[in-house]
């Protein structure tokens, strides 16, 4: 099995690893870097649980090889968590009960982060459209939509 050298930035920290060429980004994050906040739900790019930010844009970490990301900036849920407590989105997810088992949450936070970075005041329809690539088997999405709406409102008037 061929190994490749990967140099990238994960949550602001430079990372250099030699990994098998077939190592996915999800496995690099979880197995090599022990960043287990990113979850793997389907390994075929549908469920969205493994969503992270690659150079600021959402991406399925199960569908990317670590070796193709040389030089990329990766942000995971750990990187979306401020040192001094939960982010506006994280707090809103808790207040609105937007998670039950919590397995989809990291991916949804990454997706919501991208949405709010581009659209400060999304409508409910825009929120549903944005999160349509993230499956949640527990909540029925109602409270996830509410949480993103609440966080958006707070982020507009800090």
């Amino acid at each position, binding site marked *: 099995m061929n190994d490749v050298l990967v140099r990238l930035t994960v949550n602001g920290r430079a990372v250099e690893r030699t990994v098998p060429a077939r190592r996915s980004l999800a496995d690099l994050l979880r197995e090599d870097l022990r960043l287990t906040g990113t979850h793997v739900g389907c390994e075929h790019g549908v469920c969205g649980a493994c969503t992270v930010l690659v150079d600021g844009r959402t991406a399925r970490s199960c569908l990317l090889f670590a070796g193709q990301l040389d030089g990329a900036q990766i942000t995971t849920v750990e990187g979306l968590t401020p040192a001094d407590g939960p982010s506006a989105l994280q707090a809103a997810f808790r207040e609105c009960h937007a998670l039950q088992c919590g397995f989809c949450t990291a991916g949804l*936070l990454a997706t919501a982060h991208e949405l709010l970075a581009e659209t400060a005041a999304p409508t409910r329809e825009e929120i549903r459209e944005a999160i349509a690539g993230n499956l949640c*088997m527990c909540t029925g999405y*109602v409270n996830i939509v509410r949480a993103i709406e609440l966080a958006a409102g707070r982020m507009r008037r800090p």
Partner: protein
Amino acid sequence: MTWVGAPVPRKEDVRLTTGRGLYLDDVARPGALHAAMLRSPHAHARIVALETAEAARLPGVHAVLTGADAVAASRPIRPLIPTPVPLPDWCLAVDRVRFAGEPVAAVAAVDRATAEDALERIRVEYEPLPAVVDPEAALAPGSPLLYPELGTNVLWHDILAYGDVAGAFARADGVLRERFEIQRYASTPLETFGAIAEYDTGLDAYTFWTNDQRPGLTLAILAESLAVPQSQLRLITPDIGGAFGNKRRPAYLLVCALLARRSGCPVKYLEDRLENLGALMHACNGVMDVELAYRTDGTVLALRVRDVADEGKNLVSPMQHNLIKLGNIVNGYRIGAVSYEAYSVLTTKCPSGANRGIGKPFMCFAVERAMALLARRLQLDPAELRLRNYVRADEMPYTTPPGAQYDSGDYPATLRRALERFDYRGARETQARARAEGRLLGIGIATSVEPAGTNLASYELITGRRAASGSAEAAMVRVEPDGGVRAALGDPASGQGYETVVAQIVADELGLTPADVHVERGFDSSTTPWLYLSGNYSNKFSVTDVGAVLGAARAVRDKLLRIAAHRLEVAVEDLELADAEARVRGAPGRGLPIRELARTAYADVLGLPPGEPPGLEARHAHQNPLAKPVGAGRTVRSQLVFSNAAHCCLVEVDRRTGQVRLLKHVVVHDCGRELNPLIVEGMVHGSTVHGIGAALLEEFRYDATGQLLTATFMDYLKPTALDVPDIEVDRLEHPSPFTPLGAKGVGEGGSIPAPAAVANAVEDALAAHGVTVRSLPITPERVWRWLGAPKEAR
């Protein structure tokens, strides 16, 4: 009481929103190997030869296990309900495979990829046998048999009759006969199922980390199959990423254990999604023939049902799909006579098993579809027909003919509230206008009971003897030496927020806040109190777990008060616990903090009342009082406490594409006292959306050779945020007299009536096209065919 009943945000979410949860795949054991399983490509075949030497030689491979190894090193897995003759079920297939996806060999290697590489080097020679995919074909004489020693594929066949069924049918003005089918689908928890096993050669002891949701039963099976005492087993559950009944397969834990023994290393196995969708557990598909004997005023006199449950190759928990419907087969209606014919049939498909509401979604689909058809036949409004037949509030507690006791609730009021919230009249007007414009709008109503707590004594109906019975759970509450409070529960949560609700209950009893109470994550058999009955199943939290927590908390409370009374030289009756202290009622300033009482209990033990043992810990197990053995006339309370719900929905069918769009979905439910309304509402949303998925999208479809055609999330469609509307929820609150805080089950409620409600709405939308909805899911293709060729509609 201040915290119980409050919408307290969850304690769990602090870690779960920040990526600090600990799910099974996050558990890293030093030196752990990763297992992969080779699975049968055939639905039914004889294993002629199996050669693993080449796999074992691959660098990085530490151990290989086959069915023959399993026979040598373990014992068969016992089914939850014993089969008529023993059918040895090993953790890997022996001699024969009985569904596509059944594991035939396993490899443990340095990582998962290497283990999967090794699987490609295992050679298996199969002699294919005919598949049996259709349950009606499987029960017919001459069908290929999964187990020739059984002589049939039928595990259970019985006819249970209650009341004067023949008389009622003879008296009836008419009989409605219809056949309904339900497909295979599943809750597909986002985290797949798995385990880590570790074997300590010095102690001859095993430790398992697993997201198994029923640890009490699983520990019993592991001990029997590994032939070790339960005292040498430890089972730990971390955070569980959803379960819904699906997460249980003792075979996988055994495979890990045997590989751990062979390799001398901890072994982890976690399903990939293909394995999860194809081989873990599907909700039981089935066929139900329903006959309703009715009067022209709409009164339903009797119900006759023939219910064929397709178990697949289910030896984990066979036969319960029939049993679980029996008690509540009349749904919420006052139907005086019932005949129920049960068939539990093996086929060469993935094992059927528990899935959010097990059996009841089909019960509800069949009965509520029949009610919709009866309303149409009698030209009665479907709401009015239901109101004429409901068990009334003044009849509670009401015993159904098969013996279930509906403990509380107001079914007519629940439907009326739903019609009001839905604006039923307004919706009918909207529908009429839309129809005039040529649009296809439909309104669907479905209502249901939602049982909680399974009484294992009901298995006696099948086996003729009682092995386990009742419904119970155990809990522990402990004030630590520094005054901190810790609680643990034998029921490992899989998203239901028990850490929060248990903290609310304990906080009320001890005069604390939920933030003061640390609740253990999950289950650890070495520290958590537990029973054979322990686990996260049958919607049982409110009917057993709450009593266990309350009992333990109250024992600790009483002891705190006795110590305080002794120290303060007052009577116990004059004391109360509030604001983290025991204080004299009406005498501000006279009291002792819990911290100080803990110091007495653990350190300064000479300060204890005479005869009071040191320590501040209590364990308590609660048995729900409604569970009874099988009664006269084969009546049985198979489930115990009943919530209820009414769903009203509005759909629009697109003529061009056949797409069904859900425009509005209103749920009014009654789960008694809501311990945490925030959590309750979330459960109703999620459960309802699961039911909508079953109605419109989800199906495990097999071809005639037993191959699963929908084995990825590209083919097996789950509801996304764009497929469902904001579920609108309202509630009634009729507390149960038979649970300690009046709470009833809530996790399964939405998934039971939602499929029927959506189906009724689609049929209503297509009323002009003469369509009868007899099965699910209602995909665009099916609707399109109905619209194109209504004569062929089925």
